[in-house]
């Protein structure tokens, strides 16, 4: 896609994201019971698990939407535990939320501009970044003036990821980007994630229900079960594991 290699100019320490013994939840209900996970720059880590396993809660704790009750979160080597989402976004983490959450009445262009909110004073960087994002998601280029709410689901997902990329993050975490999308669109988006990993050197945490698609692009994978890490390893090994087969891929349950 883009000719330049930008892995070298990747900002931050180049140490990705790391959660250590993380405990978090909502009010008195604890969802994560001491969970550890790391993604290095240039690596996609898939996080799978049943509903209620704590996948979304994990991402919310990483991005600061909820404050962990115990454990640490390190971003690019710096401890960001307990900081708010605005601060963590500014520190280089982009959280692409479940259900895309684009700003519906704002244009595609405005959505992208606001994605760079933490770097809004850098006007020249903003233009460059927009061009780069549009190279990754060329479909958005034809829709710049359109209200984001009128885009198709796949385009909204691309916009949501593109909005996250506008801040030049070092870490990208995505919450079920395949949700409700046609397999062809999922392939297209996941292929782009692969390019973002290689060309931008991003550390990517990919939370997915669509295990097959996620395992295809991931370098490593983690299976969560009720707030703990059940299994982790290389996707091909996990696919051979009986428990994964049974839980996610067996019984004629279509995942792709």
């Amino acid at each position, binding site marked *: 896609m883009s000719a330049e290699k930008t892995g070298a100019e990747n900002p931050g320490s180049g140490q990705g994201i790391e959660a250590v013994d993380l405990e978090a939840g909502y009010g008195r209900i604890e969802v994560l019971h001491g969970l550890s996970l790391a993604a290095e720059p240039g690596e996609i880590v898939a996080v799978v698990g049943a509903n209620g396993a704590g996948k979304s809660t994990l991402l919310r704790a990483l991005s600061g939407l909820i404050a962990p009750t115990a454990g640490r979160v390190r971003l690019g080597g710096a401890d960001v535990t307990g900081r708010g*989402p605005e601060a963590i976004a500014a520190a280089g983490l982009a959280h692409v*939320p479940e259900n895309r*959450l684009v700003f519906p009445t704002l244009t595609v262009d405005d959505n992208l501009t606001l994605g760079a909110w933490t770097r809004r004073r850098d006007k020249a960087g903003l233009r460059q970044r927009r061009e780069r994002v549009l190279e990754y998601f060329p479909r958005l280029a034809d829709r710049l003036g359109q209200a984001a709410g009128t885009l198709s689901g796949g385009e909204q997902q691309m916009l949501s990821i593109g909005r996250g990329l506008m801040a030049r993050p070092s870490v990208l975490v995505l919450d079920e980007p395949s949700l409700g999308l046609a397999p062809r669109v999922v392939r297209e988006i996941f292929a782009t994630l692969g390019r973002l990993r290689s060309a931008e050197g991003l550390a990517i945490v990919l939370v997915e229900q669509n295990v097959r698609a996620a395992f295809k692009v991931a370098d490593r994978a983690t299976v969560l079960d009720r707030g703990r890490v059940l299994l982790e390893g290389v996707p091909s090994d996990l696919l051979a594991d009986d428990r994964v087969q049974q839980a996610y891929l067996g019984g004629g349950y279509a995942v792709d």
Partner: protein
Amino acid sequence: MSDLLQFVVAGLSSGAIYALVAMGFVAVFSVSGVINLAQGEFAAIAGLSALSFTDAGLPLPVAMLLALLVVAVVAVLMQRLAIAPVRRMTTLVSIILTLGVSTALKALLLLIYGPQGRGLAPLPGADLVIGGVSVRAQELWILGITAVVAVAVAVFYDRTVLGKALRACAEQPIAARLVGISPKAAATVAFAVAGLLGAVAGVLASPIQLTQWDSGLLLGLKGFVAATLGGLVSIRGAVLGGLVLGVLESLTAGYIDSGYRDAVAFVLLIVVLVARPGGVFGRHAEARV
């Protein structure tokens, strides 16, 4: 016919005042879900402090601008001291809380300024009579300034990055936080905008309606009705709601009985809330702000 026109013109100018107050309600509610019942007090504080400034010998335009500044500061302080510290703000909590702030502000105004009402000197210009309809210069100023302010507010939300960030907070608060827009900062800006809008209403209305410690009560309630007519999240709806309310009041006072003037707003409010809770002018998926 000229009666009708006269009523409409008078209604439009009082409606413009409601529209300004209503835009203030929308500015705050759309971003933070807070219904600010002290919105009317912003107008009263503006009128009274402008009077103090003219008493101190300052020229009228300077006094008016200073009053806007005073109210913007009051609005931001109110947000910081009374709204921001609340952990779990709901719309109901906000109504109770801002009712308290509104009552406290009224008491403070009564202590400082006493009970008597006074009017600011009108802005310069000759009253007009066009086709049997007389229009006061102050009414022309009200219509003109309201039009300029409404356009400025629309441009702010449609064209500036800060305005778009406020809309982003209103539409998708979680996504807004994730891109780094602080909801507290957004609420502060929203209150400053609301304060300015209420203050413009206050200094413009003062020469016609007089300003006293409690004149924010009725103005605030009518502004709220106007904002509700527009669905509470639309600037355009709020402007339209204010103008419609003003004209309906004026027609009711003119053709039925002036004693019913203040009842119009509340009858309208009940009808709207029962029949079209989303606002009369709001389309279904109406853009917030």
